[in-house]
């Protein structure tokens, strides 16, 4: 057995001790081929941590009341002791910023370094979604640009006008994402250089689209194709605009809303860009937390094996780790949905297990993984999936059994709920399928797209909501289309379509009677 020579004992820490542990963690992380951005570890106070929480962890942000609300909520919860702030906050940037709170014990600091600086950090750098959609080197600069731009707008146009605009944009920010097209990287310098130019250009485009001079009468038009050279938008040729449904509502508004001023378009763009930046995080919660938990667990155990931490610290660690990755059952008073830390940790640990000690079941279910090099296998899983596909690919019967997963179908046309699958031979695949769907953003959020902007008539905007499994819109639909109406400036309609394509429900703003009054 290794003779213990811990770097430090007790729960007090200082910078030398932290640096010594960080050094060891870096060495071990390297052994495990964890490729990371440089780490910037910041020691902060409780209050600063609450600030950081309130701004979604962003080191700089524009001002908005909702962040103030967030701060008050965090403060209240913290003061009442309902919430520990200690765990982690890490920013997908280059260098990767992680916060250590000064009140934390030595164990916590080491744990957070392992979790954030090597777990999350390597995930940000390695996972394909982050590689495709975010540019870690420019996000902080972009935030600085956004903050300054919003502040300037507040000065010129008043806080209230900017606030209302931001409210509207925030309501739609989940629909401000390009899911299939990689955006150009965002960088502050570039933004500032191009911003004035963009204002003019954009406005010119919008003006073309909405000019009031009527086009040539339809009968004069020869074939649509003959005219397409000087009528790229197909305005005169008739037909629907946009020709294809648009899923990025904010992008559509930024480019086409008739009445927005150039500065308003820029703010729509800022919210859209930030939504885009957070998009990968929303899709990789289970994987990201699972990966970080898997590595803090592995690294802490290595520190212990090498005698670099003492038993006391290890016990404290295990207690904390167990609390983080515990999964209360659905009937527990502590149940709050599936804990992404628990599910992710279980899955990554399971991949390692089936590489090292494969069973017949594993060989049948995961022929490629079972018995292979575990480090290669977990890295492969981390790099190439998002929650939905990760679960689809790697959720094993063993994890389903360990968590005792079961699925229930709640159909409003049936009187009773039905248990459709449990953790048995017949249920594994169905549970895996259902759970993967539960993490598919496209199914979690209503599927809404811009269907038509009436550019020749009353300028109204029509959206289509394609129902999935007959699930209707929630009542928040009205506040949201009100916001949408504010951005668009003319009547907004939202039509819910059944899977067969029939309109089952219409929402509009302004409400019909108000419209009549106008």
């Amino acid at each position, binding site marked *: 057995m290794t003779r213990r020579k811990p770097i430090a004992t007790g729960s007090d820490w200082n910078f030398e001790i932290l640096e010594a542990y960080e050094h060891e963690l870096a060495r071990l992380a390297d052994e495990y081929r964890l490729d990371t951005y440089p780490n910037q570890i910041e020691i902060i106070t409780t209050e*600063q941590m609450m600030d950081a929480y309130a701004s979604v962890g962003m080191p700089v942000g524009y001002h908005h009341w909702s962040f103030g609300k967030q701060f008050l909520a965090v403060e209240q919860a913290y003061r009442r002791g309902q919430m520990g702030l200690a765990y982690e906050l890490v920013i997908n940037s280059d260098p990767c910023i992680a916060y250590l709170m000064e009140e934390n014990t030595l164990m916590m600091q080491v744990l957070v370094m392992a979790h954030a600086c090597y777990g999350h950090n390597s995930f940000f750098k390695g996972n394909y979604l982050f590689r495709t959609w975010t540019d870690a080197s420019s996000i902080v600069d972009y935030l600085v640009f956004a903050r300054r731009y919003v502040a300037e707008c507040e000065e010129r146009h008043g806080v209230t006008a900017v606030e209302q605009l931001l409210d509207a944009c925030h309501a739609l920010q989940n629909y401000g994402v390009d899911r299939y097209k990689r955006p150009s990287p965002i960088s502050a310098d570039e933004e500032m250089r191009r911003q004035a130019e963009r204002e003019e250009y954009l406005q010119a485009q919008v003006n073309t689209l909405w000019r009031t001079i009527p086009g040539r009468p339809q009968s004069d038009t020869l074939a649509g194709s003959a005219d397409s050279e000087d009528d790229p938008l197909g305005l005169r040729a008739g037909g629907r605009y946009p020709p294809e449904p648009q899923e990025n509502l904010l992008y559509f508004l930024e480019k086409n809303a008739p009445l927005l001023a150039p500065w308003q378009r820029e703010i729509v763009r800022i919210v859209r860009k930030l939504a885009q930046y957070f998009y990968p995080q929303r899709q990789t919660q289970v994987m990201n937390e699972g990966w970080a938990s898997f590595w803090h667990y592995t690294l802490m155990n290595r520190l212990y094996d090498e005698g670099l931490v003492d038993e006391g610290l290890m016990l404290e660690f295990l207690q904390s780790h167990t609390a983080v990755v515990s999964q209360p059952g659905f009937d527990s008073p502590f149940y709050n949905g599936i804990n992404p830390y628990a599910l992710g940790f279980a899955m990554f640990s399971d991949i390692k297990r089936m590489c090292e000690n494969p069973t017949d079941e594993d060989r049948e279910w995961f022929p490629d993984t079972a018995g292979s090099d575990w480090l290669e296998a977990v890295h492969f899983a981390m790099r190439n999936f998002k929650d939905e596909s990760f679960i689809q690919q790697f959720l094993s019967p063993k994890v389903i059994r360990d968590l005792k997963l079961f699925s229930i*179908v709640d159909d*409003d046309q049936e009187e009773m709920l039905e*248990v459709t699958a*449990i953790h048995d031979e017949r249920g594994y695949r169905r549970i895996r399928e259902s759970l993967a769907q539960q993490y598919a953003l496209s199914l979690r959020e*209503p599927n809404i797209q811009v269907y038509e902007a009436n550019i020749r008539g009353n300028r109204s905007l029509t959206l289509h909501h394609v129902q999935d499994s007959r699930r209707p819109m929630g009542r928040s639909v009205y506040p949201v289309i009100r916001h949408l109406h504010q951005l668009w400036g003319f009547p907004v309609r939202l039509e819910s379509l059944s899977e067969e394509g029939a309109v089952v429900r219409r929402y509009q703003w302004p409400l019909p009677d108000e419209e009549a009054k106008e």
Partner: protein
Amino acid sequence: MTYFIDRRANAKNKSAVNRQRFLDRYRAHIKRSVEEAVNRRSITDMERGEKVSIPTRDISEPVFQHGPGGKRTIVSPGNKEFIEGDRLRRPGGGGGGGGSGEGNASNQGEGMDEFAFTLTREEFLDFVFDGLELPHLERKALKDLDEVRPVRAGVTRDGVPARINIVRSMREAYARRIAMRAPIRRALREAMEALEEEECKDPVLRNPSRIAELKAEIERLEKRLEAVPFIDTYDLRYNNLINQPQPSSKAVMFCVMDVSGSMTQAHKDIAKRFFLLLYLFLERNYEKVELVFVRHHTAAKEVDEEEFFYSRETGGTIVSSALTLVDEIITRRYPPTQWNLYVAQASDGDNWDDDSVNCRERLMKSLMPRLQYYTYVEITPHAHQALWEEYETVAAEYPDRFAMRQIVEAGDIYPVFRELFKRRAAN
């Protein structure tokens, strides 16, 4: 590569602006809570912030969401008893059971939690005053200049040893020494050079008497150098203290209220808010503020705050009984040389017929000469009676220190308060 940064010394309160934006946005809600709190709180209990709740419905940020209904499959952990094909009753009223929470995490939910948070004391007071639509009181208005306090005001050449400013004195001494010794040093140097020159001469050419002369001169100059004092009374500098007029640090406020049957709880609430404003105002001007509660119907009595605002009696009204009691309390406990005395009286203006004259006399002869300020608010929608008329004479006599106004409803409180205290500011 890793580096550590200690950010703890960095600016805190990064969220201050956002917090303020939030408070501004929900001003109406918060104002309501604060007004309720003001009515509920005791006058002296202003040290805390206030907890404010806003219905989550009003504060949510809506996004497109699924509503309840349709067909959903929910995967949950922790199955112990179910087998495939089991059918179960839908858990009533949402929540519970296997619900994933997707449907009810919306902004329309009935019985949802309130969003609760705590205002700091400063925020709370800002709202107290803001609710009445004027953020800052005229701080100067009531400054009383009887008391003085010594404050430092530069340095001077005269003073007592206890206030010597050592640094400045030494600096003066140093300057003086340089100035006084420079010509002596110069003469000394010249004498020494001359002596050296003389001594270097060929012995035949030396002039012994000249040497002796120079030696004597050098000795004399050295003595003179030594005689320059290290420090001289001329050098001494003293910290200068001047007497600056100060508001007396202590004040006492007499809350005088008519509690006869005609004063309803609504009247008392109005009175209370008026007293509260006055108290806060005094509290910002004086280090120590005491409160004396005097209530009266036909007889006056000193009581505690609780009894003052919440007891209710019936019967007639003799206002002068209260004024007499105040007068006595002042004589007994609050000598006007040490205390700033304020009286705030609230009444519905109803008084025993002959008594109003007594009130006037008591005020004119005894009370007004000793008081900083007397405010009278008459809480009534009705026409004024004898008391008001008598008080008008007092007001004419003491236009700066006696003020009276009528309040009909709660909304009048602040404007009246403002007017009462603005008048002297104009002087």
